[in-house]
C-alpha cells in the first residue's frame, strides 16, 4: 500500500460545481494579476502620485491574492504535498500583506478623502473669485464711465451743454430708455421739464413741486427708486403692452452763488434742487444695480458742481461786460470833459485878446476924449464911460487871471522893490475913499521889516489893495489898522510851517477893521469865487466877489497862507496873510525911494572892427541894416542872395544877419549850409541871427530848429541892435530880442 502524500479534498468532487469554482478562480486570478498591471500603467502615466509604497503594498497584496486563487486551482484535484505547501505559504503571505495593507489604508483613505474636499473647496473659491472679478470689472467700467461723464460734463462751462451732455452720457453708459431733467421754475413752486434724452416734450410741462414722491427724492442725497407711474416719470404716452422699466430719481442740488462764502463750504441746506429721472428700457428684465445707483449719485453731484462753475462764469462774464460798458462810458465822458476844457481854453485865449483890444481902445479914446473941450454934461458922461470901462477891464482881467491861476499857468514876476514904499502907496490909494467915509487908517510897520525885498510887486500890491479895500468897503464906522511884521512861528494853520531860510522871510500883514464883521459860518465861503454874503448893505458896494479868491491864489503862489478871523456880526474882522518874500542884498544900503533902474551897461561899448555879414534880398532894408551896423562901428559886408552869402562867409565874420522874411524854408536852409561849412572849425563859425517881421512862436521854433543863434524883429532900432550885439557876443545866444 502506498501511502500517498496527496491531500484529498474535503468533499467529493462534484463535477459541475467544481468546474464553476475552477473557472471562477481562474478568472479571479487573471483579474487579480491584471489589476496591478493597470495600476502600474496608470500611475506611470500620471505625473503625481505620492503613495508609491502603498501601491507596491497593494500590488503585492493583489498579486498574492491572485496567486492564492491560482494555486487553488490545483487543489481541486488530488494534489501533492508540495502544492499544499506552496498554497499554505501563499496564503500566509497573503494574510500578512492583507493585514498590513488594511492597516495602511486606515491612514491613507482619510488623506485621499481630504484631497477630495480640498478640491471641492478650491473649486468653490475659484467660482467666487470669478464672481468678484466680474464685479470689479463692472465697477471699474462704471468708474470709467463716471470719469468720462464727468470729463464731458466739466469740459464745458455752458449750462445747457452740461445738462444735455449729462443726459446723453448717462443714457449711453447705463443703456437707458429715457432720461429727463426737471428744473425748478422761477417761482419755485413747480418743476418744469427742461431736458429729455430721446423724446420731444411739450414746452412748459410742469409738475407741482410739493408731490410726495418729489419730496421723498429731495429728502435724501441717494438715488431713489420711484414708481414708473408717478407724474415725473410719465414722459410719454403709456401703451398697455409695455412693461415699464424701473425708474430711479435723484436730486441735483443747484448751488446759488450766494452760498459760496469765503472759508466756508457751501451749505447744502439750499432749497433749490432739480430732479433727474432715469428709466430703464421697458420690457427688459433689467434691475437697478447698486453700482448703477452709485454712478447716478456721483453724476448728480458732479453736475451740481459743474453747474455752479457755469453760474460763476456767467456772473463774471456779466460783470466784465458791465465794466467794459462803464469803461467806454467813462472814456466818453472823459473825452467830452477834455473837449469842454479845450473849448474853454480856446475861448479864453480868444477872449483874452479879443476882449482886451476893444477895451483898450475904449479906455484910450475915452481918456483922450477927456482931454478935449467938453461941456459939463459931456464931461460927466465921458467920466462915467471911463469908470465903467475901467471896471469892466478890471473884471475881465480878474476873470482871466483867475482862470490862468487855476490852470496853473500864472507865474510870479519877481523883482526887487521897496516894501515900505509899497505899503505907503497902497494907503495913499485908499486914503481918499477912507477919508470920505471918515475911517482913519493907520499903518504899522515892524522895525525889523526889511526895506528891499524880492517878490512880485504888482501882485502883492493887488493883494494888499484888495484886502484893505474890502476893509474900507465893508466898514461904515470905526477905524482900520494895517500891520506888517516879520513872522517867525506859530501860525494858525498847523499844516503850514514857517521856516525862514537865510535869504527869505515871511511877511505877515494884518488888516483889522471895525466894520460889519462876518458870521463865522460864512468865513469858508469868502474865498470861493463869485460867492457873496447876501446882506443888502454889501450888495450895493458892487464887486464881483472874485477879489478874495484871486488874492488867495496869489498868496498860495507866494507859498503863503491867508485867513480871516471874526468875532461875529457887528464885531469887525481881521484879515491876515503870510507870504514868502526874498531879502534883497541891497537892503539897508540904499536910501533911494524909487526902484533904482540898473542901466544896462553894454559889455562891448563899441564894436569897432567887428566883421559882420548882412544878407538881405531887399535893397532898402539891406542898406538900412548896414547903416545901423556901420554906425555901431562894425565892418559890414552885404550880400543879396543865399548863394552869395555862402560864397562870401568866412571865419573872419563874427555875426551873420540874414533876412528870413519870405515864407518857406529856403532861407533857413542857408543856416544849415553854413553849419555844414564850418563843421570842421566849430569855434570859428559866425553867429547866425535872423531878421524877421514875425514874432510868433513858430518862427522862433523854426529858427531854433535850423540852428540859428538868435532872432531879431525888423525894423531894428539902434539901441536894440547895440544891446543885441552885446548880448550876443557875450553869451553867444539870443532869443530874447522879441
Amino acid at each position, binding site marked *: 500500500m502506498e501511502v500517498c502524500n496527496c491531500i484529498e479534498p474535503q468533499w467529493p468532487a462534484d463535477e459541475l460545481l467544481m468546474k464553476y469554482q475552477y473557472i471562477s478562480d481562474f478568472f479571479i486570478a487573471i483579474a487579480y494579476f491584471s489589476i496591478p498591471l493597470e495600476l502600474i500603467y496608470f500611475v506611470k502615466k500620471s505625473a503625481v502620485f505620492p503613495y508609491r509604497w502603498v501601491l507596491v503594498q497593494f500590488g503585492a497584496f493583489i498579486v498574492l491574492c491572485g496567486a492564492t486563487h491560482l494555486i487553488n486551482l490545483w487543489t481541486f484535484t488530488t494534489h501533492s504535498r508540495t502544492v499544499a505547501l506552496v498554497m499554505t505559504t501563499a496564503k500566509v503571505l497573503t494574510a500578512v500583506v492583507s493585514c498590513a495593507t488594511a492597516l495602511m489604508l486606515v491612514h491613507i483613505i482619510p488623506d485621499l478623502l481630504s484631497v477630495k474636499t480640498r478640491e471641492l473647496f478650491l473649486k468653490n473659491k475659484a467660482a467666487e473669485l470669478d464672481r468678484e472679478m466680474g464685479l470689479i470689472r463692472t465697477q471699474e467700467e462704471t468708474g470709467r464711465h463716471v470719469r468720462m461723464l464727468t470729463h464731458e460734463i466739466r469740459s464745458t462751462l455752458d449750462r445747457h451743454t452740461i445738462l444735455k451732455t449729462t443726459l446723453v452720457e448717462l443714457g449711453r453708459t447705463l443703456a437707458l430708455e429715457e432720461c429727463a431733467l426737471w428744473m425748478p421754475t422761477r417761482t419755485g413752486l413747480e418743476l418744469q421739464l427742461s431736458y429729455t434724452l430721446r423724446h420731444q416734450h411739450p414746452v412748459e410741462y410742469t409738475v407741482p413741486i410739493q408731490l410726495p414722491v418729489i419730496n421723498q427724492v429731495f429728502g435724501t442725497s441717494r438715488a431713489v427708486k420711484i414708481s414708473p407711474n408717478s407724474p415725473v416719470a410719465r414722459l410719454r404716452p403709456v401703451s398697455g403692452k409695455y412693461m415699464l422699466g424701473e425708474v430711479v430719481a435723484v436730486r441735483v442740488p443747484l448751488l446759488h452763488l450766494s452760498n459760496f462764502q469765503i472759508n466756508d463750504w457751501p451749505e447744502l441746506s439750499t432749497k433749490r434742487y432739480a430732479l433727474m429721472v432715469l428709466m430703464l428700457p421697458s420690457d427688459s428684465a433689467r434691475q437697478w444695480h447698486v453700482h448703477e445707483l452709485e454712478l447716478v449719485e456721483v453724476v448728480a453731484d458732479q453736475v451740481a458742481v459743474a453747474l455752479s462753475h457755469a453760474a460763476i462764469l456767467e456772473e463774471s462774464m456779466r460783470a466784465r461786460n458791465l465794466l467794459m460798458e462803464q469803461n467806454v462810458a467813462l472814456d466818453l465822458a472823459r473825452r467830452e470833459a477834455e473837449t469842454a476844457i479845450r473849448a474853454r481854453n480856446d475861448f479864453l485865449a480868444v477872449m483874452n485878446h479879443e476882449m482886451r483890444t476893444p477895451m483898450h481902445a475904449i479906455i484910450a479914446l475915452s481918456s483922450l476924449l477927456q482931454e478935449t473941450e467938453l461941456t459939463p454934461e459931456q464931461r460927466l458922461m465921458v467920466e462915467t464911460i471911463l469908470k465903467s470901462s475901467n471896471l469892466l477891464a478890471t473884471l475881465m482881467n480878474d476873470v482871466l487871471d483867475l482862470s490862468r491861476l487855476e490852470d496853473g499857468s500864472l507865474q510870479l514876476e519877481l523883482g526887487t522893490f521897496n516894501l515900505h514904499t509899497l505899503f505907503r502907496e497902497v494907503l495913499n490909494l485908499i486914503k481918499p475913499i477912507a477919508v470920505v467915509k471918515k475911517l482913519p487908517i493907520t499903518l504899522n510897520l515892524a522895525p525889523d521889516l526889511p526895506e528891499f525885498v524880492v517878490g512880485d510887486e504888482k501882485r502883492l500890491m493887488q493883494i494888499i489893495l484888495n484886502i484893505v479895500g474890502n476893509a474900507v468897503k465893508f466898514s461904515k464906522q470905526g477905524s482900520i489898522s494895517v500891520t506888517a511884521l516879520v513872522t517867525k512861528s506859530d501860525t494858525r494853520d498847523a499844516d503850514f510851517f514857517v521856516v525862514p531860510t537865510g535869504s527869505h522871510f515871511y511877511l505877515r500883514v494884518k488888516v483889522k477893521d471895525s466894520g460889519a464883521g462876518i458870521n463865522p459860518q460864512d468865513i469858508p465861503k469868502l474865498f470861493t469865487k463869485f460867492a457873496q454874503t447876501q446882506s443888502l448893505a454889501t450888495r450895493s458896494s458892487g464887486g464881483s466877489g472874485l477879489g478874495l479868491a484871486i488874492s488867495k491864489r496869489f498868496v498860495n503862489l507866494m507859498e503863503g497862507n491867508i485867513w480871516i478871523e471874526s468875532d461875529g456880526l457887528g464885531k469887525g474882522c481881521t484879515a491876515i496873510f503870510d507870504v514868502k518874500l526874498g531879502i534883497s542884498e541891497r537892503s539897508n544900503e540904499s536910501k533911494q525911494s524909487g526902484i533904482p533902474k540898473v542901466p544896462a551897461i553894454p559889455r562891448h561899448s563899441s564894436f569897432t572892427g567887428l566883421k559882420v555879414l548882412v544878407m538881405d*534880398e*531887399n*535893397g*532898402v*532894408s539891406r*542898406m*538900412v*541894416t548896414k*547903416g*545901423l551896423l*556901420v*554906425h555901431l562901428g562894425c565892418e559890414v559886408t552885404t550880400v543879396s542872395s543865399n548863394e552869395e552869402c555862402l560864397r562870401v562867409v568866412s571865419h573872419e565874420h563874427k555875426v551873420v544877419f540874414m*533876412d528870413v*522874411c*519870405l515864407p518857406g524854408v529856403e532861407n533857413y536852409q542857408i543856416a544849415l549850409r553854413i553849419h555844414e561849412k564850418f563843421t570842421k572849425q566849430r569855434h570859428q563859425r559866425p553867429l547866425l541871427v535872423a531878421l524877421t*517881421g514875425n514874432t510868433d512862436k513858430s518862427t522862433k521854433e523854426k529858427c531854433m530848429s535850423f540852428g540859428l543863434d538868435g532872432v531879431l524883429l*525888423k*525894423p531894428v*532900432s*539902434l539901441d536894440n541892435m547895440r544891446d543885441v550885439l552885446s548880448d550876443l557876443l557875450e553869451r553867444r545866444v539870443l532869443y530874447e530880442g522879441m
Partner: protein
Amino acid sequence: MDLVQMQKSLQDYTKSLFLEGILDSQFLQLQQLQDESNPDFVSQVVTLFFQDSDRILNDLSLSLDQQVVDFKKVDPHVHQLKGSSSSIGAQRVKNACVVFRSFCEQQNVEACHRCLQQVKQEYYLVKNRLETLFKLEQQIVASGGMIPAVELGF
C-alpha cells in the same frame, strides 16, 4: 527966409509928417544913423527906396493887367515893397502893402487893383513929402546951418 525960420519950418514940417502918420519912428532911426562919417545916409537910402519902389510898382501894374493874374508873382513884389517901406519908416505905404497882401492871398483881383491904386497913392505922397523935406534940408545946409535933430514929444 533966415536960418532959424528955415530950421523951424523944417522941424514943423517933419513933425507934421509924423503926425499924419506918413512916417514913423523908423525914419528917426535912420536919421540917427547919419553922422559925420555918413553924412548922406538918409538921402541915399531914400533914393534907393524910390528907385526900388518905382520898379516894383511898374512890375505890379504889369502883372495885374494880365488876363490871368499870377498871384505867385504878385505876392513877392508886394512883400518886397512892404519890407522896403518898413525899413524906411513909410508907415502908410507899409500898411497899404499889408492890406494888399491879404487880398493877394484871397486872390481877389478887383480888390488887388484897388489896393495897388492905394499903394501908389501913398507912395507918391511920401515921395513928394520926402523930396520936399530934402529940399528944405539942402536949403539949410546951403545957408550954412545945421539940420536940427528932431525932437518929438511922444
